[in-house]
């Protein structure tokens, strides 16, 4: 039986959804124009006034926002409310070490948690469930989002956060966790650990909600089999709110976008033209209910397809495919955003030439990052301990900037493959898309 958190919204008619979008968009554009000077300036430069946007059909007239705007406007430039009205900050890694910070009013948190509650109920969650949240808590939106959603559903919420696998499994067995929320790679790791210890018959999981990184159908099957559950995908980004921007239902054929809060468009990433329905392109979101951080036409850089066909679950909101790639060079490794330019910055800061290559792979369903660095006379010494100390220094600097461990491999000068004279910076062996 399909369960809904807000059936009157989730299964509303298309006309109703469009009516909400039209009304909220018009109000929101005026609100942003009045309260975010940064965006007002962009509108003025484009010669657009709030009066030009009378419905969703006029959305294309508005200027885009990109990660570069978030960097320029850092930290408060895109915040539409005074600090006194905002109650929360969440953050995600950004380019060249500057983080993206997003703000929330209490109302924003409420709506975000509603979105996550919809995802939990779409995965079969009720107030009788024990929701085991193994997303990281803290600045990362994963923990906070699913935690809040679980409260809204009325489930018993286990705020485990990430790491300490022994304790995760112990609690799972002892407290009878029924819904697991974490990254797909951590779910795969937990599944392996549980089966290695022969504890599969002592866990009571029935479903999992996994997001924040790309995963394949094959990985889904592995996790479903390993844990004896149904695995649901969830999508989101800090800039727009966090997890729950869209989520999978029982059909498992794409993620329903919460269109009462976010208007989705697909554009050609090069020409920036809006593409007709069903075409593959870059996903763009416009937040129509947010107060503190109301981004309009934010370019996600995720490449995907929107599908409006009728869904067997009864929901009427548009479905997006799993992201099929990126329109920039961002990598998502262990759920963390990594830009090659960040690694370049570290190397240059340490006085090395930026001759490097990133090798991303997935070993036992867990991402690995290896940074190959071409040896230079500055790094070299006849003493191995001195060379390894410099190597360690690089590993620590990367851990500090990226938040994840990267293996550094020192390679011979000029050994990194170059195509047409340009070094190939990233080799992603994961084949996720």
């Amino acid at each position, binding site marked *: 039986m399909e369960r809904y958190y807000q059936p009157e919204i989730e299964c509303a008619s298309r006309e109703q959804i469009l009516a909400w979008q039209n009304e909220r968009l018009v109000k929101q554009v005026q609100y942003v124009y009045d309260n975010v000077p940064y965006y007002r300036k962009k509108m003025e430069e484009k010669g657009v006034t709030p009066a030009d946007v009378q419905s969703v059909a006029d959305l294309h007239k508005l200027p885009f926002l990109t990660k570069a705007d978030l960097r320029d406007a850092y930290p408060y430039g895109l915040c539409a409310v005074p600090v006194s009205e905002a109650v929360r900050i969440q953050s995600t890694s950004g380019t060249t070490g500057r983080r993206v910070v997003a703000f929330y009013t209490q109302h924003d948190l409420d709506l975000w948690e509603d979105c996550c509650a919809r995802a939990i109920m779409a995965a079969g969650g009720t107030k009788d469930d024990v929701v085991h949240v193994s997303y990281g808590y803290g600045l990362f939106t994963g923990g906070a989002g699913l935690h809040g959603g679980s409260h809204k559903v009325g489930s018993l919420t286990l705020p485990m956060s990430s790491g300490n696998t022994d304790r995760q499994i112990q609690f799972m067995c002892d407290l009878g966790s029924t819904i697991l929320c974490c990254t797909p790679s951590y779910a795969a790791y937990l599944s392996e650990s549980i089966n290695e210890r022969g504890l599969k018959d002592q866990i009571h999981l029935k479903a999992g909600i996994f997001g924040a990184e790309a995963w394949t159908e094959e990985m889904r099957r592995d996790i479903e089999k390993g844990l004896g559950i149904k695995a649901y995908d969830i999508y989101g980004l800090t800039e727009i709110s966090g997890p729950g921007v869209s989520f999978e239902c029982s059909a498992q054929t794409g993620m329903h976008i919460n269109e009462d809060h976010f208007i989705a468009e697909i554009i050609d990433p090069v020409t920036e033209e809006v593409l007709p329905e069903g075409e593959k392109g870059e996903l763009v979101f416009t937040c129509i209910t947010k107060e503190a951080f109301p981004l309009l036409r934010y370019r996600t850089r995720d490449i995907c397809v929107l599908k409006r066909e009728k869904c067997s679950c009864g929901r009427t909101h548009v479905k997006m495919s799993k992201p099929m790639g990126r329109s920039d060079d961002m990598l998502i490794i262990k759920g963390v955003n990594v830009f090659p330019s960040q690694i370049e910055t570290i190397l240059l800061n340490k006085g090395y030439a930026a001759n490097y290559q990133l090798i991303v792979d997935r070993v036992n369903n867990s991402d690995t990052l290896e940074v190959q660095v071409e*040896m*230079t*006379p500055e*790094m*070299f*010494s*006849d*003493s*191995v301990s001195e*060379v*390894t100390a410099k190597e360690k220094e690089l590993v620590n600097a990367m851990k500090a900037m990226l938040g994840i461990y990267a293996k550094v*491999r*020192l*390679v*011979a*000068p*000029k*050994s990194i493959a170059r195509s047409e004279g340009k070094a190939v910076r990233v080799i992603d062996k994961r084949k996720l898309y």
Partner: protein
Amino acid sequence: MTINQISVFIENKPGKLAEFTDILSKNNIDMRAMSIAETPDFGVLRIIVNDSYNAACVIREAGYVFSITPVLAVAIPDEPGSLGKILNIMGQGDVNLEYLYAFTAPKKDWAYMVFRVQDNEKAIDVLSKNGVKLLNQADLDQLFD
């Protein structure tokens, strides 16, 4: 009283060392002594050659990362206990040893060691005072005449 050691970065992969030694042989460079310190990813090859200036030019030309380090070469009697004697002298003289390796020359009754220490001046002082025979580049060349 030091001799020049050339240290070269070599990737820890099949065939890499052979590539390097081929370059030396093509350029008629003779190795007097060698050792390798290895990690899972790379090795540091340390060599002492007949003509270190020429070797350095050839190695640079071939695109290797390398460095030249002055090290100490010592002749010791080829009999049990003689290395220990020298190590004790260094220990008592508070000379810290980074690494060492041995090599042979066509001279009966003598063995040869290369010492890499933190402070060459201090080590030379301590060893000379205790009558240990240090070799310079000319001494080394004579051994192989």
